């Protein structure tokens, strides 16, 4: 029984018995169901101050917990990623992947999710990705300045748009201009 209580405490919330009920109350609830006496469930529900449905729920839980281990049906094996199955990427490759994905237009949270698919729990969170992106973005400026200086003399036709001059179009998400 102690093991049952321990198990319940660590299991998801939906399996937890009502906090207001003691273990004794839960057992009594289950007993009323198992007694199969006419009106026992209704009387017990009134006595305990809970619904009849809750009593049946407690009975099912108790039965499941008291069943010998061998008889418990083994749940279908869910393919889960073990450490060996998870792809391994070194830090520079992770950074490259994250920065390239961001430059493409994927948000840091989406990148986090995608990296978790590849790396499992070892994947970086979005704040780390944001830091990597910020570091890479800082290095882009001097490179771009050099490249722009080389590009300008070659431009004979230019397509211009307000977006590059801080035009007065309204933006949905940001006040910054490209």
């Amino acid at each position, binding site marked *: 029984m102690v093991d049952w209580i321990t198990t319940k405490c660590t299991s998801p919330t939906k399996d937890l018995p009502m906090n207001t009920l003691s273990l004794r109350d839960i057992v009594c609830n289950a007993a009323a169901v198992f007694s199969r006496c006419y009106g026992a469930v209704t009387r017990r529900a009134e006595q305990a101050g809970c619904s009849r449905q809750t009593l049946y729920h407690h009975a099912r839980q108790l039965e499941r917990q008291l069943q010998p281990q061998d008889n418990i049906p083994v749940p279908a094996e869910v393919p889960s990623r073990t450490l060996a199955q998870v792809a391994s990427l070194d830090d520079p490759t992770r950074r490259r992947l994250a920065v390239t994905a961001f430059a493409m237009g994927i948000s840091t949270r989406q990148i986090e999710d995608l990296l978790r698919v590849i790396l499992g729990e070892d994947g970086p969170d979005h704040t780390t990705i944001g830091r990597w992106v910020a570091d890479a973005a800082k290095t882009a400026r001097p490179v771009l300045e050099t490249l722009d200086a080389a590009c300008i003399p070659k431009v004979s036709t230019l397509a211009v748009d307000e977006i590059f001059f801080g035009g007065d179009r309204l933006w949905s*998400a940001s006040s910054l201009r490209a």
Partner: protein
Amino acid sequence: MKPFESLEFAISDAAQGIAAGVVKVAQSRHDVPSALPLEHGLDVFHTVMEAKRVLAQHWRRAEAAWEKAETIARKVAQSKQQGIDARGVAPTARAAWRSAIALFEQVEGQEAAWDRIHAALDLFGPDGQLNDRCRAQAEIGAALEVLSGADWSKVRNFLKERRSLAFLDRMHRRLEQAEPRRSWREGWWLRHRRVRPADLRMSLVQAVACDRELDEEECASYGRVAVVLGDTFRASSAVECMNSVLRMQQSRHRRMTQPMLDLKQLYWNTRSFRCGPRKNVCPYLKLGLQLPTYDFWELLTIDPAQLTQQLSTQGNAE
């Protein structure tokens, strides 16, 4: 735009601010004898987009009228089937069909007129001849008579702008500079054109021009003409494409700082096009910039001082 000393032609939408800016830069160049003249063209992209928007509206209206007529016709058929006198509904059905057919014919006429205008905005006419301002204006003028409604006013204004056909003037001027001999020039643009003209005679002439062996002088001449034809831009599709990318990303990212924009700019300038006439070429390469690498990540990790040195040794300086 001042740093762009080699800039000869600016393309934009009908924004007045940009037009004023281009005029200002062009005027400042007048005072400098060595400076190149600057022209401003109205891009075809926005004209096409507006025309398609109006056409779509008209088509929706026509389709709605057609569906309405079909519904009434079904009622008439049902009445007849059930042996009910349909003489009361039949005239309504006939009127609905007349209206729907008239609307359809009207939209078809508008679409044909727009197709004619769209063809007039191309470098080559449907007959395979090189397009010019006179020819394009005549075609546009004739087609605009059909597009007389108030909703076409924006398209009409765009097309009546002199700047809309500035790319044709510039192309002919540059072609004359590239090859002063008219007969040679015409031979070369026939050779250059990929699409076969609809006119059979022109198609035959083009086939002869394409198959003929060229000597050294002719090769050089053809090269100059081909550069002009390949370098004539009518639309700011590229910038609109970039706009769509940036706007999409601005709505996705919570913050869009200048360093982030720099990062994106570098990425999209090094990304090769997947298809189309620029397939496997990135914008930097298309511009003729000789870089030690076109890989985004490698460029990002390269030392700027080293990059400057490599750029100067690879002949990027004009």
